[in-house]
């Protein structure tokens, strides 16, 4: 496995918005991390990137092991060599990654010059190649444009080119297509999938969109209130979901064959991080809730086919 996360707990002051998170990913694989706002999926990405200290958080417990290197507690200098190099991040809003005052081409060059030690000319040639690879029309012209001269989809391609410039092995993509129109989203998703398969990268795709997950991922981890509540192959998640939350989540997405009124919303709402229920965090909304759910925190139990479920009543249905 290229990356293994075990028992990860992220703390902010007295709160732990991410708790006991575990998953792994290998080269050539796409792992989807799905969840709604506040599920801790983005914080998990930030923890992997070693950027928690920048937003006032810390790793309280657990391991993040990347190709034999323990990232939790790694000194900043060593993290910096990995970040943008062997591990790259693609953010939701391209303007988080782009400098609005700088032409886009040289921004792609930076990672290659820093991490691969290329000179300016070699870095430029490499950037142009990457841009052509991402189907950016007329790369030599676009190279000299500023971000504001590009459309949203084009900006996101530049961000992907920046991420690829340092020749990464692991891509962490945090909602990479959420801000884009559907036709553009479809193009970007397809580009990302092709990259992973062709270059043998590993990609962690963080999203709230079950449609994107179904169309791209090999394996999926579903998060709720800071915990992984189910983890399985993508087909198993959609055809044999075992956690009541995963089952409910799938039922509230409109599908082509549904008629009006057949969508079943989940009652209630996601609890606040400062006010989590005791026991299983889904218990106030769960149709299968029992007494034990209020006292015991379910751990992820993994059964045949590497299908893990964190539910005390998974066999009750």
């Amino acid at each position, binding site marked *: 496995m290229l990356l293994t996360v075990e028992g990860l707990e992220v703390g902010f002051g007295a709160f732990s918005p991410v708790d006991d998170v575990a998953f792994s990913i290998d080269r050539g694989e796409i792992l989807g991390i799905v969840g709604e706002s506040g599920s801790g999926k983005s914080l998990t990405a930030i923890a992997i990137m070693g950027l928690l200290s920048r937003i006032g958080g810390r790793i309280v417990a657990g391991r993040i092991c990347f190709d034999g290197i323990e990232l939790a507690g790694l000194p900043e200098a060593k993290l910096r060599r990995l970040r943008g190099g062997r591990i790259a991040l693609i953010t939701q809003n391209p303007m988080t990654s782009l400098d609005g005052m700088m032409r886009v081409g040289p921004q792609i060059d930076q990672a290659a010059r820093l991490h691969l030690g290329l000179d300016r000319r070699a870095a430029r040639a490499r950037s142009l190649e990457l841009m052509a690879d991402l189907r950016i029309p007329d790369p030599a012209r676009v190279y000299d444009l500023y971000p504001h001269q590009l459309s949203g989809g084009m900006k996101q391609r530049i961000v992907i080119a920046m991420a690829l410039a340092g020749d990464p092995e692991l891509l962490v993509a945090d909602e990479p297509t959420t801000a884009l129109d*559907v036709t553009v989203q479809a193009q970007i998703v397809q580009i990302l999938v092709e990259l992973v398969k062709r270059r043998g990268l590993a990609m962690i795709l963080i999203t709230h969109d079950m449609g994107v997950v179904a169309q791209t991922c090999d394996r999926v981890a579903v998060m709720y209130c800071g915990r992984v509540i189910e983890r399985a192959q993508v087909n198993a998640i*959609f055809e044999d979901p075992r956690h009541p939350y995963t089952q409910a989540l*799938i039922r*509230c997405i409109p599908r082509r064959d549904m008629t009006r009124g057949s969508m079943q919303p989940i009652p209630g709402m996601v609890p606040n991080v400062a006010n989590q229920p005791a026991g299983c965090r889904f218990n106030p909304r769960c149709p299968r809730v029992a007494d034990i759910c209020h006292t015991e925190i379910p751990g992820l139990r993994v059964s045949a086919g590497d299908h893990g479920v964190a539910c005390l009543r998974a066999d009750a249905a």
Partner: protein
Amino acid sequence: MSDLLIVDHLSRHFTNTGLFQKRQVFHAVSDVSFSLARGQILGVVGESGCGKSTLARLVLRLIQPSKGAVEFDGLDMATLSRGDLRRLRQRMQLVFQDPYSAIDPRYRVRDALLEPFKVQGVKLKSADATVASLLEMVGLSPALTHSYPHQLSGGQKQRVGIARALALNPSLVVLDEPTASLDVSVQAQIIALLNRLRESLGLTYLFISHDLGLVRYFCDKILVMYLGRIVEIMPNDAVPTHPYTRALLDSTFEPDPRQRRTITRLSGEIPSGYNPPPGCAFATRCPRVSDLCRTNLPALETISDHHQTACHHPLMNEMKSEVLQQVNTHESAVP
């Protein structure tokens, strides 16, 4: 069924007059006509900048059209005096996309819900009873009566937005991307609520969205816009004939890993509304483009009952079966 809303050749352009800029005309909505029957839900779909939000504001006459007319319940809105128009607004309401900015942060829920009555000068027998019944109608706890917007979740705020829109008992509600900023489970709750309210109150909805999957689920009729123009109007269960609608449908990710499909890649850029092409606006990206499309604007033509398309080369009968097949077969895009 009679038509509640008739929109006739509606256009709106904006003139850009910057100090050092050349005078430019932006065509936001061009020659849009449709009708909406009482009790129906019409979905308006399109990508950013296609003019769908401008259309919503034109229908409510929050902005004036450059050309064309809007008829609401038999009344031509252009002929109404300001006072009449304000009174008419009781019957047509808007729910905004962003519940965070739609409610004044200094208003408590109660104040937000009573604001429409104040604006319209409607006297209430009991303000408390009105607030309580509005909260109940949208499934909010009476405990939230004195809360401020920042104390509410996104879903709760959107429920307040809906309650406020329904306060004056409207006939038409324009919903401008009401669930775009919400999580899927909250979106499902809001859509279920809107459906229930429509049935119990006999409402008519104009539902604006970028999500064709959601529109197909929720609406009776779908209107697809591209660069300010209607490219297709069809019943929700019809097979699209316009290549753009088809591309939108292909780009919608089905939540089913067994139905992975190769996406028809649209190349080319969307033309600018400042300088719309003389022919079909989709010609720069269309896989079925011909020379005719680049020079001649296709008119919206009826191809079957309630189904109109604006295309020189629509995907017709023989193509339809192929489309259906592609929609239904399980081609694997990713090995």
